[in-house]
């Protein structure tokens, strides 16, 4: 599938081998250790940013390899994207209210 289209039904079952899985597992465990370690350092405003960044990397790894999205049709990729997009809409649009409340009477 050199050029996956939205309707690409034939994402040929690309079989991911134990080697890749092992590598991903290793990476995930290292990242876990890393994020826990960093948690003991006080980075001020950055500590949540760093922690969430690491979490996001871990998530992307899991999605791409454990969940085979890297090898799936573009439709699946779009679906995943849509999910997170809507999630962000919920968060940002709601927070936009709470944040801007502090800006005064109006």
């Amino acid at each position, binding site marked *: 599938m050199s050029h996956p289209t939205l*309707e690409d*039904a034939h994402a040929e079952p690309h079989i991911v081998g134990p080697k890749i899985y092992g590598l991903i597992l290793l990476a995930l465990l290292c990242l876990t250790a890393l994020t826990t370690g960093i948690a003991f350092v006080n980075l001020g405003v950055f500590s949540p940013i760093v922690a969430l960044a690491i979490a996001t990397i871990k998530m992307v790894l899991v999605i791409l390899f454990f969940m085979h999205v890297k090898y799936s049709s573009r439709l699946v990729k779009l679906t995943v994207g*849509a999910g997170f997009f809507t999630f962000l809409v919920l968060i940002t*649009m709601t927070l936009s*209210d*709470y944040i801007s409340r502090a800006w005064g009477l109006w």
Partner: protein
Amino acid sequence: MSTIVRLPNQQDATLPKRSYLNSEYGLKSWLLTGDHKRIAILYLISITFFFFLGGAFAGLIRLELLTPMPDLVASDTYNKLFTMHGIIMVFLFLVPSVPATIGNFVLPIMLGARDLAFPKINLLSWYLYIVAGIFTVSALVLGGVDTGWTFTTPLSTHYLNTHVITAAMGVFIAGFSSIFTGLNFIVTTHRMRAPGMTWFRIPLFVWSHYAASILMVLGTPVLAITLVLVALERLFGIGVFDPSKGGDPLLFQHLFWFYSHPAVYIMILPGMGVISEVISTFSRKRVFGYTAVAFSSVAIAVFGFFVWAHHMFIMGVSNYSALVFSLLTMLVAVPSAIKIFNWAATLYKGSITFETPMLYAFGFMGLFTIGGLTGVFLGSLGMDIHLTETYFIVAHFHFVMVGGMLMAYLAGVHFWWPKITGRMYPEGLSKLAAVVTFIGFILTFFPQFILGYLGMPRRYHAYPPEFQVLNVLSTAGATVLGIGYLLPMIYMTWSLKYGAIAGSNPWQATGLEWQIQSPPPTENFLEIPVVDHEAYDYEWLANKTQHEVTTVG
């Protein structure tokens, strides 16, 4: 290019020997069926039941409002009445109405599929619907619930001792029922299309259902978790929505309306799909600007997620975000306008006949236009201050939901009835019903716009006497409306046995569902069709029928 309309004479039409109705017999063959057509019938029956239940509550409400005094029922009874009316009509009728019945029945056939992608899940969603219904009814029987269908906190969490959790449970389950329906539709639309059925050949009915399904899948879970939080708050009083414990009741509003505004589009979009089919069929013309209409559905679905806070303009949201949400609300109004104009333009140079579905469709266009435009009143900040929480709101969303969606639903039922049952309903009577419904509706809800601007608050059990005249009008209209809804119930049932045999394509419509026998066989298509024509290609239909004639004779 032009086509001459040739309706087949229905004298020589006969019922097919084998159809989904008589392929198997016995209750079990229905309750355990995987056939989307039979599930659609199950839905049709249960939804009709809940519609008339909710309608009964509406009747009682109108009766109470006949007089300014709180004299017919006690206040809490009245509150329980409108709460039940809201919950049943929204979650058990409007949301599943067109998708679960008509959509379930014709969507796979339109795409040239043998069934929905997941028949078992489809059946499951019906059972979930029934369980939800049972919960709701038991909440009613156990003594009712008086939160209003919006479950507003902290009222619902701390200040009521009615069966809030039972009702919330019902809504929760109903939500999952509609999630599964939407999931099924999306997968079917993507994966089950017949060869040659490209995205721009699928009927607009499918497009609008696709858009609505996206909303169902992405919006409903938020409602689910919100209701879970309400239940927990009620049980343990943790105070996540309780200001005295540091919670924020507005958070509930945000989460609730994040679903419940898109829910409005979940309700209306499938109706719009029906209207596209009907208008095109009875003007023998391809819908004007197919792509525009198709994309306007998707646009509505996408924008629908960005506007929820316009339900909270006066509830203490930050004025900045009120500004943003108002702007986005104006944007979402545009696609609906596009649709209306395109439908109207479809009639141009058509060859129009006025069968019952067409009358309902006209009714839809009129009432939905009013409903939509009054939406602009409420979407614009300043006007919203005066109009919100009054009868203007009530009138507005009844024009959209009942005037829009219910008209479309009836149009659809009348349009596909011959396909579903293989029989025609009495034409004259049904036309009468359509007209009666329209008149009754206007009479019921138009006065409420005036009441709203006069300032009569919604959900009022008693009201100042000077509002009585308009309320009496409204109640009078409600009776007419009730008759308008009972009529189809009666003659449809009658037609099941005595109706004229319809034949496979009584309207000479182009959808794939009309090219197979009616009622259809269980597997829909003996062999999967290969689509080589655009949607609404009456030229192709004419050639096809010609071809058939020559082969027969």
